């Protein structure tokens, strides 16, 4: 696991953070049954395999749900309210969902709206957290 993964990992997801640091979206596929597991697991509860291959996925998907946030919650002082948060469903990764900031660039934000992501970071409590930033297309 690289430096990014060591800082931000919440469990088995170190390669995800290492990927973001390189500008790549990496998600895990079970080597035993081919299921995409997200959040990442060490052991596949479906087939028992401990073997997971991390595959590069194009950061594009659809909005599964969203909120427009207006309240200045602590730690997010660098974000100007209101800002949009989306849950992004990735068809290319078995429907795995990522959460992220969304910019209403093209079509208005709604469930099902297509979005594409770019790599960046979000300031939280003075720290730059690696992030994918999404825009409606």
């Amino acid at each position, binding site marked *: 696991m690289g430096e990014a993964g060591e800082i931000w990992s919440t469990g088995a997801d170190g390669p995800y953070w290492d990927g973001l640091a390189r500008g790549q979206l990496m998600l895990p596929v079970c080597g035993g049954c081919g299921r995409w597991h997200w959040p990442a697991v060490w052991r596949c509860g479906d087939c028992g395999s401990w073997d997971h291959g991390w595959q590069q996925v194009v950061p594009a998907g659809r909005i599964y749900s969203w909120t427009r946030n207006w309240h200045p919650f602590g730690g997010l002082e660098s974000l100007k309210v209101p800002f949009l948060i989306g849950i992004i469903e990735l068809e290319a990764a078995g429907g795995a969902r990522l959460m992220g900031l969304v910019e209403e660039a093209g079509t208005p934000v709604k*469930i099902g709206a297509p979005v594409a992501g770019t790599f960046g970071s979000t300031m939280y409590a003075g720290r730059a957290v690696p992030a994918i930033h999404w825009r409606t297309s």
Partner: protein
Amino acid sequence: MRPIAGIAAVAGVGVRQYRRGASPLPERGVLVRAIIDACEDAGFDPAQIDGFSSYGDDHNEPVRLMSDLGTRELTWSSQVFGGGGGGIAGAIGQAVGAIATGQATAVIVFRALAQDNSGRLSAAVMAHHLNGHMMAAGLVAPAQVCAIRAQRMFEHHGVPGSAVEAFVEAAYYHGARNPDAVAYNKEFDIEAYRSARWISEPFRLLDCSRENDGAGALLIVSAEVARDLRKPPVHILGVAQGAAAGWGDLLENDADDQYATAGFRSVARQLWRQTGLSPDEIDVAQIYENFSAQGVASLIDHGFCDYESAGEFCRVENLIAPGGKLPVNTAGGNLAQGFIHGIGMPIEAVRQLRGESANPVPGARTCLLAGGPGAPIVSSAIFGTEETL
């Protein structure tokens, strides 16, 4: 397997509630006061308490209460996992288990919260769950997480906003008529509700419960012991905690058919199986609402209505005492009575079944308690009067 009904009953309740930041005593002092209140309510000697159970990362280790209570011997203490209110009924279930197996004979289920001691509840709940994925998305507060679930319930599943409005209005209707409620004597102004400032869409300010300082306690003893105490026993007929596969702390990857729920479907199935009851047989309900839409989602999860019928079921006249089809949150709930991490909800369940509620439901024999919705682990319980056994 031994049925749960008939093992244990709530014999006494006590609560002390203050404005946030206005507690006259530090947290543990208020908690001792609430426990003594519960014992006086039951006519029970506090020195005989030998067990304790809590939830939501309560900071007050029971062993530290012993000197104040005169505890002779602590034989059992426990807490339900999770930072939110999901474990509230589960804590009662643990007490029933301890009593059934002789590990304890008199258990206090409690929650105490004073901002000066434990900080803001929302921050504590989130500290339990916060991770890099959430920080990167700016998704750092319970209000936002619940808002995003609510948005899908509205936009994708078609639950009308009127269902949530009615749920909120019913809580305020009851709170306005409860002298112990923060909303006492304040009639609900629907236009003020609809125009309050946004927090995180679809939630405005009055969709969010705002915490109080205080403490609450329930004294739980065996059904036999409860019959000899001062107040009529309120029996625990069924209680369940847990999560189905596809629900939990999953970075918003909950199964598609569970995402826009409050997480109770498996727990509700357990409850109906344990008790042999159905939603039609519940007379009154205390539905923990951290946020308004999650209360309606709890009603759906427990089978009172579904996405399609939520608008028809959740009408104000259906949800208020005395005559509604299912009066909910009859003390005002977390929204309008006050919010000490939900401990007021089981206390109102007990008062309702004793006929002591400020908004009584005449002849009520059964009361559902649904714990904190949307938490990775949720829990529910059904309480009943003596005649339901």
